[in-house]
């Protein structure tokens, strides 16, 4: 069994048993099983403890009645909503633009968001019913959502929101010509479906989707599995399914109705036969199913259905639930899912049903023509069918149908000698095409692609099949592929790779992340001179142009081994890497690579980030900020960044500083972003310094810090004495009072908190100066000119001082350090890309420079006014500074730039 599935199944069982134990209703056998599971594995015990402690935490939290008021207080507008974000993922609608439009508008209020999660699936279901799956559903949905959003206001009560949804559906669907849903039925349905704001009862769509997730497809009988795949994956009407199965159409319709009823009853927590249905109910249910299958109702049937829905809220619930399930099956019954879930069941009949479903895919795909390597993008068919074709063909051709029957896999290209048995009423297998050479087996399918160039997306679009030996090359963007063994790989452009097999990718150049979820099979990344082998883990591999290989491990363990071509007899140099470690291997390395701790977790685009990027493209603020931050982490030579995220009080989206990220001697206050565009979107603000309060940003100088990696940290954990170059950039702006004066205001480099002894360098408006300038610690430098002003134009005679004003300013400082000697060069308001060709506005030698923290401070002369500090950036090169600051500029030209790909 696939370890992931086994783990999921165990996890589900464990949690179920833990629930029963908590409720005190566990049987002796169940308790024994619980103990057995817990004793067998530490991870299970951790899971159990977390689960039980969650319950204990709730007991504790709610045992004090006065806490309840706090819990139910509404949250401030615009606050992040993790509960709703998590819940919406269960619906599987994150690719649905209409859903996202409504989600974004409702985002300011948690009750509205939660209501939207309930409302939108109902809107989809009603549209599905009215249109019978005809083309143009998305436009109709778009019109309904538009109508909803036109009248939407954050001040609406939840009940008003539901009524608005009902009105919008009636208005749009009522005006659609040739729709299947008779007006009277539509009105009755809307009245019942959108009348109540109470979503948690029988029709909680989140719970419905969770239950369907649990059941579909692996809890179906083999017969039902095949029928549903024909109906939903292939979109065949019941009459065509009947033709394909050589069964009477009425029997297919009946079976579909029974299957839907079964799911409806499960969602309602009822047994399929726990309610005695009258003949009228049964007739109405069949008619309702006809409607779901796109068949218009007769006048009599319309009347029966209307009466059935109007007669009981339970019937109305069943009706809309059936439509929600119908819509869900249409969206979720993908071949990829079928294959991913394969490990859950291994009984022979189920395996045969899977095999037959795969044969169906081959058979029914025949009109599209045989897939050929040169025409991998199946643009004429739906995406899911393309993916299905790929995986089906891949499995049939590469491993043969005996895989699940315990037989040896058939070599690629050779027909299976013992085709599996099929049901008697199945159609004959397709005739072989002897004249065509066998295609290489399909080993993977492209499951996501973001930001590829048009020429690349034609070749590597979603659903593209990758056959053994296929090259994967593109210049920019991201492609995610799913292999037939269950692994997922994220490839970042520019990249050159080859799909050698479902478990072996050759990486010539570029970056990829692998998430191995196969059944214990290693996923191998072969680079030109090394081999990365993993088992059940997540890791990233990078091959640079000069063939240096870097490997970062996020979960599990991998082995990085060189395979030196020059001396094949030599034993390979190898290192085992566990989670949280990385290593590099040079082509000519004579020693085994040294493992070092990961500096951060986002060097590579990981599988979860692909989803985040999709959400970012849809404009979800939290996703935008996260993706921007991950991109920022990938800037070469970046050492530290603090953009002053307002929501988290500067504790999130920062790197390179120790905890707490902002130490201070007084009140912490945030202002607006300084400058037009921030490197991180959505949340960025600035630090407001006034009243002489000191704000310290302590640099991370630990072994795994960027500073240590840049070799700038001495044995005392200080920067300044080791030879090297360090660049700093930051933005400032004076606010709060026109023409405010400051005793001093600016940024200091310090090695302690005492300004009289521990502050070797200060940049800003030094004490006693009414201009931008620099100040060095007097005790360290025997220099009468320990203060110096910036000179706007060093080419002119005299000093062209820069007088403080209320505009935003960008500061860049270069520190060149060499033992006890150092110099500081400062530029103000010079774009980073011009700095290399621009003389510094101030160049000051210093002695004894050493520091491990930055201090930000402003003391207004009359106690009025403040300095805003923003985008504090440290980098090992000017290019690093430019890259961070240019991220914002490039986005202003292309808003999608950072979410589509590097």
């Amino acid at each position: 069994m696939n370890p992931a599935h086994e783990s999921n199944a165990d996890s589900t069982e464990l949690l179920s048993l833990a629930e029963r134990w908590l409720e005190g209703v566990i049987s002796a056998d169940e308790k024994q099983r619980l103990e057995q599971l817990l004793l067998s594995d530490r991870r299970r015990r951790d899971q159990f403890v977390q689960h039980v402690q969650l319950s204990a935490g709730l007991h504790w939290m709610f045992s004090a009645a006065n806490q309840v008021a706090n819990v139910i207080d509404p949250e401030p507008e615009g606050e992040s909503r993790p509960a709703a974000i998590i819940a919406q993922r269960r619906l599987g609608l994150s690719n649905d633009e209409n859903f996202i439009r409504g989600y974004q508008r409702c985002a300011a209020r948690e009750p509205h968001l939660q209501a939207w999660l309930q409302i939108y699936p109902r809107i989809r279901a009603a549209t599905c019913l009215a249109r019978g799956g005809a083309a143009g559903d998305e436009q109709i949905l778009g019109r309904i959502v538009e109508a909803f959003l036109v009248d939407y206001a954050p001040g609406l009560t939840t009940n008003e929101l539901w009524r608005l949804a009902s009105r919008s559906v009636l208005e749009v669907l009522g005006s659609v010509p040739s729709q299947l849903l008779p007006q009277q039925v539509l009105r009755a349905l809307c009245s019942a479906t959108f009348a109540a704001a109470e979503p948690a009862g029988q029709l909680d769509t989140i719970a419905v989707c969770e239950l369907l997730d649990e059941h579909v497809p692996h809890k179906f009988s083999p017969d039902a599995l095949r029928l549903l795949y024909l109906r939903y994956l292939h979109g065949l009407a019941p009459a065509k399914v009947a033709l394909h199965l050589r069964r009477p159409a009425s029997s297919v319709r009946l079976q579909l109705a029974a299957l839907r009823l079964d799911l409806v009853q499960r969602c309602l927590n009822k047994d399929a036969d726990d309610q005695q249905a009258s003949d009228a109910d049964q007739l109405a249910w069949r008619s309702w199913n006809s409607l779901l299958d796109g068949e218009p109702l007769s006048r009599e049937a319309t009347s029966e259905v209307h009466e059935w829905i109007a007669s009981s809220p339970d019937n109305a619930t069943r009706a809309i639930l059936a439509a929600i399930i119908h819509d869900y099956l249409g969206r979720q019954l993908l071949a990829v899912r079928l294959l991913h879930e394969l490990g859950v069941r291994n009984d022979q009949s189920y395996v045969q049903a899977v095999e037959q479903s795969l044969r169906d895919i081959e058979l029914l795909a025949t009109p599209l023509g045989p897939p050929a390597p040169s025409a991998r993008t199946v643009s004429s068919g739906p995406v899911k069918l393309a993916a299905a074709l790929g995986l089906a063909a891949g499995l049939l051709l590469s491993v043969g149908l005996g895989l699940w029957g315990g037989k040896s896999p058939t070599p690629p290209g050779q027909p299976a000698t013992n085709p599996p048995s099929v049901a008697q009423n199945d159609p004959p297998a397709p005739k072989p095409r002897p004249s065509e050479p066998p295609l290489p087996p399909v080993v993977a399918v492209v499951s996501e692609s973001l930001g590829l160039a048009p020429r690349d997306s034609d070749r590597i679009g979603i659903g593209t099949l990758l056959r053994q030996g296929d090259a994967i090359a593109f210049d920019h963007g991201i492609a995610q592929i799913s292999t037939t063994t269950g692994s997922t790989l994220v490839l970042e452009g520019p990249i050159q790779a080859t799909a050698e097999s479902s478990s072996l990718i050759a990486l010539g150049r570029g970056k990829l992340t692998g998430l191995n979820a196969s059944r214990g099979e290693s996923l191998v990344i072969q680079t030109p001179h090394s081999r990365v082998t993993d088992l059940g883990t997540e890791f990233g591999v990078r091959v640079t142009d000069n063939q240096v290989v870097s490997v970062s491990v996020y979960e599990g363990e991998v082995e990085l081994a060189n395979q030196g071509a020059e001396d094949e007899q030599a034993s390979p140099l190898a290192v085992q890497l566990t989670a949280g470690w990385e290593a590099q291997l040079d082509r000519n390395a004579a020693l085994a690579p040294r493992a070092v701790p990961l500096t951060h977790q986002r060097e590579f685009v990981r599988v979860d980030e692909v989803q985040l990027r999709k959400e970012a493209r849809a404009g979800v603020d939290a996703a935008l900020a996260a993706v921007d931050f991950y991109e920022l982490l990938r800037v070469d030579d970046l050492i530290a960044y603090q953009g002053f995220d307002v929501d988290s009080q500067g504790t999130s989206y920062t790197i390179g500083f120790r905890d707490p990220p902002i130490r201070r001697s007084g009140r912490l206050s945030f202002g607006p972003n300084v400058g037009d565009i921030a490197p991180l979107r959505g949340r960025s603000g600035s630090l407001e310094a006034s009243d002489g309060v000191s704000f310290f940003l302590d640099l991370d100088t630990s072994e795994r810090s960027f500073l240590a990696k840049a070799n700038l940290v001495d044995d005392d954990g200080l920067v300044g004495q080791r030879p090297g170059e360090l660049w700093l950039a930051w933005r400032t702006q004076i606010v709060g009072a026109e023409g405010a004066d400051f005793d001093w205001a600016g940024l200091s480099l310090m090695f302690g908190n005492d300004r009289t002894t521990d502050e070797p360098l200060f940049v800003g408006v030094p004490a006693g100066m009414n201009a931008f300038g620099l100040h060095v610690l007097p005790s360290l430098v025997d220099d009468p000119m320990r203060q110096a002003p910036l000179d706007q134009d060093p080419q002119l005679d005299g000093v062209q001082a820069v007088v403080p004003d209320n505009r935003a300013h960008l500061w860049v400082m270069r520190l060149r350090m060499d033992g006890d000697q150092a110099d500081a060069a400062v530029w103000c308001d010079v774009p980073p890309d011009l700095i290399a060709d621009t003389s510094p506005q101030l160049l000051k030698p210093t002695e004894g420079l050493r520091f491990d923290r930055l201090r930000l401070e402003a003391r207004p002369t009359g106690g009025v006014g403040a300095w805003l500090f923003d985008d504090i950036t440290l980098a090992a090169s000017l290019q690093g500074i430019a890259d961070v600051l240019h991220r914002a500029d490039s986005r202003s030209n292309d808003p999608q730039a950072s979410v589509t790909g590097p």
Partner: protein
Amino acid sequence: MTSSHDNSPPSSLFVQLFAKHQCALNAFISTLAPTRTDVDDIMQETSLALWKKWDQFDVSRDFFRWACGIAHIEVLRHRRKSATDRLWLNDELIQLLSVEMLENTELFDLRRDALEGCVQKLSDVDRAAVELRYQSGMTVDTMAKKLGKTPRTVHRTMSRIRRLLHTCITATLRELSGQSA
């Protein structure tokens, strides 16, 4: 407790430390005992035992570890006289869980902190269900009667909410660790 011990730590410190750790101690006991009644009884017995032994406590030691050690003894003592014997986990597991919980106290503290934030993110309806269950102390059956649902539906609702909270807590911690990466 005998107050004659000259070197015994001050009572005010006991109050301070106990107040600080009682939530975590309650969680520790809850993991080992099967019902709320058992947990409440053991918590009470443990509090009393801690107070009685307070004069033996070395203030340089970790109070929480010391308290958990005593709680563990009280759990085993309570188990012997418990009427809910069939529900108790076996000794080996109780021992294992106790040790492992102490290895991960920081993580569990973080999870408890995150729980509060996640509860605040629940929908009104889900929060109301949680309040009924945990604040009013209703059993599932009582909740089912009050809400006009089947006990199975209430079980599923509570399971779903707990899963949602669990996911939210994990996501919160992951976000925290990712953001300070």
